[in-house]
């Protein structure tokens, strides 16, 4: 993967063309005709600063910083409505997710919408470590991502809910969920990372 170019002027297409080459689904980005079906369909659209339609136009306009620090990337819940409805068949969700990954990699991520970023990180940590998500571990990891003191406070805030869930049998006590042959999962992830590095 080549380095992400930083456009020297507005509407310089170097960033847009880099996205086209390197982001999954980016080759379809050209076809966006700015109809707004994606933003109009998005159930979370009100929370977003830009929405997918505008985000894509910003990619064309070469606004790299604005794109990668946009909250749109982290507000996406992957419901795939935009993907299904796009009249030009653009994989909107895929592109947004991959732009989020790019934002994380390029160091834009923690600056905005930290909660969603931290949660994604916690989720991935659990999946990578145990091959499964364990609600207690993911939650704890997420809480303590904000710092030790903040973690304790958040945990205490949610204690009542946790106890209620245990009582109702919705959260188990004991060892974390895990899969068999964790080493094979590790090998798979390592291989994927290696492939990704190669580009």
């Amino acid at each position, binding site marked *: 993967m080549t380095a992400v170019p930083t456009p020297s002027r507005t509407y310089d297409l170097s960033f847009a063309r880099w996205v086209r080459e390197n982001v999954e689904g980016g080759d379809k980005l050209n076809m966006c005709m700015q109809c707004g079906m994606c933003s109009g369909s998005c159930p979370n659209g009100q929370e977003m600063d830009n929405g997918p339609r*505008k985000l894509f*136009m910003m990619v064309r306009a070469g606004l790299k910083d604005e794109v990668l620090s946009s909250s749109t990337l982290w507000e996406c819940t992957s419901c795939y409505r935009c993907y299904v409805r796009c009249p030009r068949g653009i994989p909107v969700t895929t592109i947004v997710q991959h732009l989020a990954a790019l934002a994380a990699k390029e160091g834009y991520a923690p600056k905005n919408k930290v909660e969603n970023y931290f949660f994604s990180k916690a989720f991935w940590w659990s999946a990578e470590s145990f091959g499964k998500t364990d609600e207690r571990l993911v939650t704890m990891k997420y809480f303590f991502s904000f710092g030790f003191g903040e973690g304790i406070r958040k945990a205490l805030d949610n204690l009542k809910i946790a106890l209620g869930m245990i009582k109702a049998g919705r959260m188990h006590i004991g060892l974390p969920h895990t899969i068999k042959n964790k080493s094979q999962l590790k090998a798979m992830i390592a291989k994927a990372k290696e492939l990704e590095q190669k580009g």
Partner: protein
Amino acid sequence: MSDDIKIGIYLCEGCGIAEAVNMDELEQAVANQYQVAKCQRHAAFCSDEGRAVIEKDVKDGEVNRVLVAACSHRVMTDRFNFDGAATVRANLREQVAWTQPPQDEDTQAFAKDNVLMGIAQARTCDLPEPHENVVKSEKILVVGGGISGLTAALEAARAGHEVTLVEKTDQLGGWTRKWSKLIPSRPPYRGLIDNPIEDIIKAVEENDKITVMLNTLVSKTSGEPGEFSVTLSQGGNETEDVFGSIVVATGWRMPDDMTPYEKYGLGKIGNVISGVDFEEVLKNGLEHEGKKLNTIAIIIPCESEAMPYTSGVADRIAIKQAIQVMDADPSAMVYVLHDNLRAHGQAEELYREAQEKGVVFMKAMVKSASEGPELVIDDLLLGREATLTGLDAVVVQTGMMPNSTNPDLPMAEKGNEFLCDDVNPRVPITINGQPAGDGDEVKAEAAGDGEEASAVTPDCDPENPPLPGGPILNLQYRQGPHIPILYNGFIDSHYICFPYETRRTGIYVCGAVRKPMTTAEAKEDAAGAVLKAKQAINLVKESRATHPRVGDLSYPHFGLDICTKCRRCTVECPFGAIDENEEGYPKLNPSRCRRCGTCMGACPVRTISFKNYSPNMVAEMIEAVEQPDPFDEKPRIMVFACENDAYPALDMAGINRREINKYMRFIPVRCLGSVTLMWVSHALEKGYDGVMLMGCKSGDDYQCHFVKGSAIAKERIGKVEETLRNLMLEPERVSFEEVSIADSKRVVELLDQFGEQIKGIGLNPFKGF
């Protein structure tokens, strides 16, 4: 020779007529009318057996006028057409059987009145005698040597006609010569095609049927279809020739006024070039002034602020040029700045192709342009202002101004007011400064409501016409030398219903002088116009009318003995068919005439008539209807319905079984333009309680088949008020409605509304006098 008239009435009982109407009663009521020789009934006169009955009577000489009282005159016209006997129809099916309650007193009266009107019509109409016409030439003149003209010449030659192709400049090909690549016109509508202009020019030059005349202008055209006598001036050498019909393909030019484009820097800032000049750059492999272009903004100016003459053509050309840039250099950056991107026809595919190739389309308004070039834009998709920098070139798409006039020539000395609109029919026509005509009536009508009106409608100032320049054909017509234009200077031709017709019969128009179009469209257009030109020659050979009353043999006769030389007919004819002779009397050019009867409606002394359509005929029909006793409280309302759209809509109402107001009586007219005000006042004098005129839409988006007929009728009806006041009648008794052919529901509602209105006013006090 009225003694010789023997009318045969044929009462059809089919299609539900016999169920709705008491046929015995009807037969009794009409069989003994004056000059009715025979009255027969049959279950279906349209059957072979029924038709044979009529044919036998005609053959035996028992009848010489046939009145078929059956269906509408718009259907079964071939079936009810008998040699040697004028045939008229009374509409018992659509108007009576299908729209009225069966076996009702009023239904019976309706049927009877329709037959009585038919008898009056049969009595007063005759078989048309074709005028003696000579086709002196079957050659076709094509004016303009661009893509439309070249294609027209080739198509005409292919259809077997000799062609003379006249081109103003010293070479053929016109604008298309400049184009690098063309928009595809065939599936899959992707991938630009090579410019075929060289092959087309070669084909024209090699064709023996085509005579090409370069550096040539048409200096004079007179005559009529079949015998246009044209003077061609080749560098001052004048030659005369006779042509059967003319195809005008003079194309377009850059707008005379380029100041609206200066906002984008065109002509002011370096490296800002027009879309036309950019074609040259594309031919040179993106080289402009020794520099290879890479970053290019293509502007499609916002129509409202800059482009009065453009259309989707500029948009499609912008897409095409953007694709060409990407094809030449995939690393190029092309921005298409548009307000509305219109990809007409199949150009949506082209738009996709451009997107796939990486062209960036931006909905953005250009605010200003400066050296560099740099553009300050309002990006409507991002909702912010931005500056486009680092551009190698800016391409501005310009408009297409029609060559409806020749800008190289001085303006015509007279007749310029006929270029863009019609003379106001309410204003007196002057001859040498004196009001024309000596009939008091003319003066009274002309005085109008005392307003100081101009002789031409306000949007046309003869001193300052919308298009500068001289006439293309320099027609030696009473109505000036021009082919009339509609808006933005494009030649008036109804772009859906009759695209190639101009308002000068036998002269057809194609290409960008008709409407803005691309090369492929122009080629198609040229073929269409040539077919019309060919059709005109063939019809004129048989002395028949061309569009839209195709094949009609009748033509107007002028009773010059009582003509007052008011010149209203020569001025109001929508097609300039009537000239004036030396003494100032109207002189008809029958092949130019389209038989609408607008002259008939215009004539204040009612001396213009057709053999089968005359002021007298309709007056007799008006009188034929029986007025009920005033104490019955049953009004009678006369509806003059244009047979092009209004009458079909009424027929359609019948087919859909909508109930038509039972107090209405209908007379089909050729065009509302043929309605003389005498009919209106006559109807009211005879005791009708109201009169309605029902015709096509007038105005810039007219639907009138004779272009100006309904507009002229509207003007005329505007002054009927005074006539009504003289009769001591309420002006609300006369109504004018514009309907379309699809308005079958609306016409019924309109009739009911008008019926209610008349009821509110009360019965006509003249009833019973």
